[in-house]
């Protein structure tokens, strides 16, 4: 049986798809930026931070890395209202993505920091740099450069994770595809479009991260 493709049925839903792309990009950019920020703070806390801070951060990282993203999302969206914390679906989705990326990002960035030789810290101190300056220039930037490709992949994974957010009525690309599928029963076409959109977005995201890498680490070999 030959399947007859009919993209014409999808055309009226173009605005919904466009909105879906916008929402997915929004989730990825905000979630990615805040998540990497949280990851850096946690990586500092776990490797160089004060001793009392390490157990709670370790607990957070292990808790998030060992539970499914969907459950974390439902916990925030459906669970927290029971104790009076009611977040809209976008806030809940972004919070879940930040918390998730924060934990994975922490471990990736920490790997970069651990790989920095101790002597390099001491070199920074002997050049009369403050602790913050040492962390920023001597520890963090080389660490980020080392793990940039891994971090890029993690952000792409988080973008795909955003597809799960359609479960709580976030109107992203996946929501648009599911919606079109439920109205037109053109499941194949709808998901082909969604697949192509995610692929294109992921390729763009990787290119942006690569350019950002060359910008952030100008004196070093561009990170790939």
């Amino acid at each position: 049986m030959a399947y007859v493709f009919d993209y014409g049925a999808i055309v009226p839903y173009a605005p919904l798809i466009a909105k879906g792309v916008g929402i997915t990009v929004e989730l990825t950019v905000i979630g990615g930026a805040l998540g990497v920020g949280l990851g850096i703070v946690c990586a500092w806390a776990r490797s160089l931070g004060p001793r009392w801070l390490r157990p709670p951060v370790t607990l957070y990282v292990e808790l998030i890395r060992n539970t499914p993203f969907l459950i974390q999302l439902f916990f925030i969206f459906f669970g927290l209202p029971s104790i009076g914390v009611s977040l809209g679906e976008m806030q809940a989705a972004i919070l879940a993505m930040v918390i998730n990326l924060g934990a994975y990002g922490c471990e990736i960035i920490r790997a970069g920091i651990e790989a920095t030789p101790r002597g390099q810290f001491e070199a920074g101190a002997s050049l009369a740099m403050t602790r913050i300056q040492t962390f920023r220039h001597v520890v963090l930037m080389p660490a980020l450069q080392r793990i940039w490709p891994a971090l890029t992949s993690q952000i792409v994974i988080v973008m795909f994770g955003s597809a799960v957010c359609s479960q709580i009525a976030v109107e992203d690309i996946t929501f648009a595809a599911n919606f079109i599928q439920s109205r037109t029963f053109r499941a194949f076409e709808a998901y082909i479009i969604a697949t192509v959109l995610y692929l294109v977005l992921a390729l763009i995201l990787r290119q942006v991260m690569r350019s950002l890498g060359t910008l952030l680490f100008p004196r070093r070999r561009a990170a790939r």
Partner: protein
Amino acid sequence: MPFDRRSLLLAGFGLLAAAGLSFSPARAEGLDDILKAGVIKVAVPQDFPPFGSVGPDLKPVGYDIDVANLIAAKLGVKAELVPVTSANRIPYLQTKKADLVISSLGKNPDREKVIDFSIAYAPFFNGAFAPADVKVTKPEDLAGLTVGVTRGANEDMELTKIAPATAEIKRYEDNNSTISAFLSGQVKVIVTGNVTAAAILARNPPRKPEVKFLIKESPCYVGLNKDEPKLLEKVNAILTAAKADGSLNAISKKWLGADLPASF
């Protein structure tokens, strides 16, 4: 080993065959034969709670079963429950394996060509539900409110047509997500079936869904064979009396958690 696997299997098949034989139904006739036999055969669902499901003691229980027993009691006969699926309930009636179909059966022109229907005995509708403090009486009142619905369900299509542009419709993946969104207060109103609302009420939640307005109504009727006007008349009389004396309302309260709507 005293029993080998083959003899056990054979015994099992033997039992099944015996069971099959003992259940093979006699021809159902009209009202007089039912009264003479002292038994009325009623086709009921067993896969559609709260209308009919299998109880803890493996016997069917539900709204339809209670109505079947009520009708049988008023006729002064015993109800013999015949479990059916939604696909085979009308064939069971037509082949006279059942005298009545009380199986959350809705009315439509195609069915009316082949069988007769009693008056309605159970409400079945899609509508907007919200807690008592949400003031909504018609679709226009949904303006500015968050409304939860299950994506792609019939009620989603209807809601999309009638909801004002400013209503924020949140479409969830499945019924359970829609229910969770309502219970956690993520949406003010849900649009769903009265059966789903009953399922929510059964959990006795702090946010109780009350019906605000109906979107599409298709109540349930007792189905009968066409050539039995006496039986039809009797069933209608029993249902009318049951509505008047509150016994039907008690069944509605018990299984749907709500009074019968005003249209009954």
